[in-house]
């Protein structure tokens, strides 16, 4: 299975046509896949809160959006999630590289990993953790759920899901 294509296909099948990204090494393949697709507009953003603003506007303009980012971004975007995405009741699937989990080689990444689920729980953001590659089978249902309830939803994907980080 080509996991990057599978993810992009599920997003397209759920009508997602506007994607903004802030890169992570684990997400490089899926970002490249999305960038090449003609059924998705890919607008890279410089910071994740900026990206959420783009998604909010795109959704109000009639396109289903998604953001692809690293879990460190939860620290950047709490205010945006609370006062824009949640306050105005907007759907936002967040495909998140969950750095600092099992098979992580960079110790500093663990420092935000230990806060990630707690912060998402504090924000009442539905959170799914994909650990094995077969867990991608949930993605279609998660995306349907997101656009059903008009909430931000976190999809955490760790190094094990991506088959290890680099040589680890």
């Amino acid at each position, binding site marked *: 299975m080509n996991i990057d294509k599978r993810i992009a296909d599920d997003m397209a099948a759920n009508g997602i046509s506007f994607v903004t990204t802030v890169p992570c090494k684990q997400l490089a393949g899926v970002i490249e896949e999305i960038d090449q697709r003609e059924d998705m507009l890919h607008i890279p953003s410089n910071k994740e809160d900026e990206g959420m603003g783009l998604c909010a506007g795109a959704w*109000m303009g009639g396109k289903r959006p998604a953001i692809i980012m690293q879990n460190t971004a939860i620290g950047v975007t709490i205010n945006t999630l609370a006062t824009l995405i949640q306050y105005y009741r907007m759907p936002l699937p967040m495909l998140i590289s969950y750095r600092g989990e099992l098979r992580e080689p960079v110790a500093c990444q663990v420092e935000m990993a230990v806060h990630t689920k707690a912060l998402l729980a504090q924000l009442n953001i539905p959170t799914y953790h994909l650990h094995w590659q077969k867990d991608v089978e949930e993605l279609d249902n998660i995306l349907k759920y997101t656009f059903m309830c008009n909430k931000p939803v976190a999809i955490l994907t760790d190094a094990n899901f991506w088959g290890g980080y680099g040589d680890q």
Partner: protein
Amino acid sequence: MIRSEILREIAPTLRDQLVVCNIGIPSQELHAIDDQPSNFYMLGTMGLASSIGLGLALAQPKPVIVIDGDGSILTNLGTLPTIGNNAPSNYILMIIDNGSYGSTGDQPTYTSQRTDLTGMARAAGCARVVEVQDVDTGPVLEEALASGEATVMVVKCDSGNAKMPVITMDPVVIRDRFMKAIAS
């Protein structure tokens, strides 16, 4: 001129357009001067008006006017390269540059000293950037709408706020009527 005087002058132009308005006193002023379903008022999230407007302009063909401020642009400076590289022809970013953080007590921003937002927007890749004096805002905005090009306007004006009531409309109502105006 201060911001509210500019908004009052351009209200007849804004009335027929999709407007995304910056957090705080700018939204309160626009709401009090000429509330329209086609206005999206930001109630929180400082800095993202330009990004919300850009996403909206990319998603649909109607013109989008973003009313932003120098302080909010400075807090989300990454927006300028994203605009410079992606803004479609229906996007107008109007930065009311009064050199101060109006909603928090008129503390000076760096644009009141050495920082030049017009130059920064150009350096970020924005092709059509127009620096405007407050009294010329109306005609320049009309030109921007007629130009068929993405435009960044930097409107130089005086610091100061009109005293207007806080917006008490529910955010979902603001968003819902805005989406209906977009779709109509």
